């Protein structure tokens, strides 16, 4: 197969233009595209029609696992593996286990929030084609980008370029793979 680009990258000057462009691309039926901005834009996510994040569920599961793991660690240590009889007091003294259970809940939930976020985002990712466009360095400073990827079914180098041009970008460039 001949040389095939990763996609087409359009550069915009302000946030509103990017949100509009993303909404237009979504309306036009493009699926495989992404918007890049130097700060989070809530409206952008809606405009792109992306699904809701699954992260809260991951964190909930992490928190429950931490809670149960933390409690049963203590139960097992205090009641089974190393029971200490102090004047006949109950070995499963659960009120005394609450602080550590709580800390374990928070610890595992927080770890799943961060690791889950990285996993869902596919990070760390040392190489990505969009960085081949020199001006993309400005995506972490002041500029806004929309990239329609070649793997999209509707992607066609000429018609997609025309579509992007119609959105009023500063420039459109080809992204090398």
């Amino acid at each position, binding site marked *: 197969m001949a040389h095939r680009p990763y996609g087409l990258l359009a550069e915009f000057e*302000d*946030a*509103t233009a990017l949100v509009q462009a*993303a*909404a237009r691309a*979504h309306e036009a039926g493009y699926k495989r595209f*992404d*918007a*890049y*901005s*130097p*700060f*989070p*834009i*809530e*409206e*952008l*996510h*809606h*405009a*792109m*029609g*992306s699904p809701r*994040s699954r*992260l*809260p569920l991951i964190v909930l599961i992490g*928190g429950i696992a931490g809670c149960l793991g933390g409690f049963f*660690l*203590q139960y097992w*240590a*205090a009641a089974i*593996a190393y029971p200490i009889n102090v004047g006949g007091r109950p070995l499963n*003294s659960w009120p*005394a*286990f609450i*602080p*550590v259970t*709580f*800390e374990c809940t*928070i*610890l595992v*939930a*927080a*770890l799943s*929030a*961060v690791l889950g*976020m*990285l996993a869902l*985002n596919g*990070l*760390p*990712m*040392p190489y*990505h084609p969009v960085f081949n466009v020199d001006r993309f*360095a*400005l*995506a*972490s*400073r*002041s500029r806004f980008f929309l990239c329609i990827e070649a793997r999209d079914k509707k992607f066609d180098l000429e018609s997609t370029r025309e579509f992007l041009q119609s959105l009023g970008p500063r420039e459109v460039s080809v992204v090398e793979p």
Partner: protein
Amino acid sequence: MSDRDAAGGSAEIKAGVEGYTFGSVTDKISSVVLQRRAGLGWYSGFALSFLLTMLLLVSIAYLVVKGIGIWGVNEPVGWAFAITNFVWWIGIGHAGTLISAILLLLRQQWRTSINRFAEAMTLFAVACAGIFPVFHTGRPWLAYWLFPYPNQMGVWPQFRSPLIWDVFAVSTYATVSLLFWFVGLVPDLATLRDRSNSRVGRIVYGLLAMGWRGSARHWHQYDTAYLLLAGLATPLVVSVHTVVSFDFAISILPGWHTTIFPPYFVAGAIYSGFAMVLTLAIPIRAVYGLEDFITSRHLQNMAKVMLCTGLVVAYGYMCEAFIAWYSGDVYEGFVPFNRFTGPYHHYYWALLTCNVVLPQLLWIRRVRVSPAALFVMSLIVNTGMWLERYVIIVTSLHRDFLPSSWGMFAPTFWDLSTFVGTLGLFLALFFLFLRFLPMISIFEVRTMLPAAQVETDWEDVD
């Protein structure tokens, strides 16, 4: 209180960044790391704090060789400086989490320009705090025994002990603070990666940024993660100082065995933490010319938080003394009497002066708008909070039930050198942080600019 005050003065804070664009905000904050040469002030400050860090290492090395007898600890005062310093440092850390997590959930936008270095302060303070209990164990090379792990001795930690709760609370706190700080840094590390002129800078910041490219899909997960972390850190920060106060309150020692301890410790932690944020912020904004980002309104808001938590702490002192008297218990009643008039009464009255009397000046607007006055006030509160922990620990321990077991504590050179050494370590880490990482969250300041507002009148897509 006017409407403007009620909104945390957000209009005034936004006005500070009015003249900036996405580009100039980025340049201004990142230039401290990327372009600006470190001045004489930075070098001399770093040199001094590095020297003190070396003093810390010498003190610790000597401690490991000789044992904790080199400190002034004895029977009955077994905790003294080490635990005073531990509680003081942990408390200082709490303001960082409060600013980054609780104020985020409360949508206090003014937190944006101070959260990064307040979180750095938290991390470094927790690092300093952790040193004390570990070396106070006397056999720091066996500190890992505190964690539950299968071992050939067949023993497990005593999970009914508040000291084990403390191990879990503080290590969870350190981990979550690090995660929160690092997650907040990732987009800014990407900015530094893209803007660094040196190859080393590009590689190091590039590795740390993990390939962050500002994708909208990533931002969405990122915002969710950040909000969830804030939600998790909020109960955590309250739990940490509560557990620290349990170290005292669960015991049966007069002066420690009180239920007011958890809320009053948490308030005290926030009190001292905000004082430390002011101690750091006031010189930094002057030296690096960041008055547009850390405005007078920020300083005033922090002063108000200090005033409020200071009053809670004052209530704690009152309640402590009242309940001791009201209990009718002779040993409990003796504790406040001994604090007011006993051998450590100078410390007690100094603590009340620093924590309760002088901070009332913060009611006066002229004091709140003067950075110099606030700086002095922050040092006073830091001193007062250190004295508070010293008084709680030493005066309760040195005279308990049996007069035959009473004693006195006096710090030795090594007590002082270890404490001063951790101050050096804290400042040295902070100086390095200022040079190598953006001290203000760049991407969050970008969201405060007027240009970040998306016009949504066209939006009827769904």
